[in-house]
């Protein structure tokens, strides 16, 4: 089998006595949407933060395209094609939507940013890239609005546009549907479904309907351990998963 795009090998992260990431192994192939589900406090965000380099693991290794990136800082991982959206919206709130995306494009257009004189807001390639990414997520008409004036749903979409503007190979989406209404969620699912052709996705999400609609594979994380990993129908049948997590979720039962 070919080397998977992302390979996580026995990752461990402790907080004091609590093992938040307990020997996690994970593979994500090219073109796959791999969902990670689990109850609150299972360590999903902790795992994502280690993948992006915002948190250092205590043991284990992370490979991207066969390359060991376990000790790379966040910006280097971004340069290699790893992008994330944040669970709690994390944008530059005193900038416009277009500025947010243009900065992401600026970080990845191959030219450094030690340029002190030319007006960056007038660089056409950056603005075009920003507009394209905004159009992509349906925010084209809100380009010049300050982030702090955008609705929560729009901010979630902007998170995605920013990630896309870094031209990623792998998107790590930390609860992209969090706080979205029904129609907004549906739009997001549709959007992610389109994106799967271009980019691999690790999807952390509580919205089970979305997860089962999108995921090629699902890993279930409980108390920092992956207790099951497989195709959606396998996960749905798995007794341990049912007991630990899915048992009381009528959405899933209804879906099956």
């Amino acid at each position, binding site marked *: 089998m070919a080397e998977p795009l992302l390979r996580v090998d026995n990752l461990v992260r402790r907080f004091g006595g609590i093992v938040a990431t307990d020997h996690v192994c994970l593979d994500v192939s090219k073109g796959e949407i791999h969902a990670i589900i689990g109850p609150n406090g299972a360590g999903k965000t902790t795992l994502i933060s280690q993948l992006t380099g915002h948190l250092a693991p205590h043991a284990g290794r992370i490979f991207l395209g066969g390359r060991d990136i376990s000790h790379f800082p*966040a910006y280097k991982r971004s*340069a290699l094609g790893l992008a994330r959206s944040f669970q709690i919206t*994390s944008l*530059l*709130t005193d900038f416009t939507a277009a500025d947010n995306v243009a900065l992401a494009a600026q970080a990845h257009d191959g030219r450094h940013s030690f*340029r002190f004189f030319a007006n960056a807001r007038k660089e056409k390639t950056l603005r075009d890239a920003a507009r394209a990414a905004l159009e992509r997520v349906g925010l084209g008409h809100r380009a010049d609005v300050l982030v702090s004036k955008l609705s929560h749903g729009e901010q979630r979409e902007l998170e995605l546009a920013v990630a896309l503007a870094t031209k990623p190979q792998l998107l790590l989406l930390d609860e992209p549907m969090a706080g979205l209404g029904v129609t907004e969620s549906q739009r997001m699912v549709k959007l992610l479904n389109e994106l799967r052709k271009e980019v691999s996705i690790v999807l952390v999400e509580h919205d089970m309907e979305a997860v089962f609609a999108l995921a090629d594979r699902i890993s279930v994380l409980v108390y920092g351990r992956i207790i099951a990993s497989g195709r959606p129908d396998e996960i749905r049948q798995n007794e341990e998963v049912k007991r630990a997590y899915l048992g009381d979720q009528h959405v899933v039962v209804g879906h099956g």
Partner: protein
Amino acid sequence: MKSQLNVSTLVAVLVVAGLVLLPVYSNLTGNIFILTLFTRIVILALAAVSLNLIMGYGGMMSFGHAAYLGIGGYAVGILAQEGIGSGWAQFAVAIAVSALYALVIGALSLRTRGVYFIMITLAFAQMAYYVASGLARYGGDDGLTVYKRSDFGGLINLGNRVQFYYLCLFCLLAVVVLIWRIVNSRFGLVLQGLRSNEQRMQAIGFPSKRYKLACFVIAGMLCGLSGALLANNTDFVSPAVMYWTRSGDLMVMVILGGMGTLMGPVVGSVVFLVLEEVLSQLTEYWALIMGPLLLLIVLFGRGGIMGMLGRLNRG
């Protein structure tokens, strides 16, 4: 919206016009004192503008900025005493040593953040203060008299009050323009992005530390220039220019005028230093009036004077 007169822009233009015309007024009325006062104001405004790049646009609360005033000043004073009178050499050394100091201090300080960053920048500036106090050959505690101002050949005579004033004003305005360009450049957007959300900037691929360090160095160089001018203005340099209260004054000027605004620090310096001058003539206890006054502006005028003017504009 655009056709509406912008109050803060108007004030900025008036301040610049006033500064440009000041020597004319001084000449007409024969008031030499006001020219002396404003030469000092313009020089310290330059220092405040440079600090604003770190504090206002970079979001880093540096509490040791006066160190560069001393470095710039001592570069002029020491070289003059050692017989190197060339202004080009003196100013180049002032700026280069400031850059070097900023590079070292910045690389160390930027490992910390928040209140620790404030404390470590303060500590380094105090260290510079004590080093200067120990320079026995160059006056130590008592400071160093600059017997001859920097020599720029036939280009400009720093001994001439009006010429010197215009040199300082030119430097100030040039630096304001420079910062205006920087703020809107690629570098400037990264800098302001880091102020807003450093984690996000790292996640989209920016190595945050080297941009902050570059900002620190640029600001240090500009303040070193201010220090070189200051030593020429007072014909004297002493460790006192580096004392922490001076760093505090610079911070107050920036906050008073409006952090992260282009002209805020200039307006803040003018208001701060004129108030200090006027109040200190009224009473010996001028600080008792000045303190509460500044407190009121900072408490109720979010964004300083420029911030208040901006709100006026919006009605």
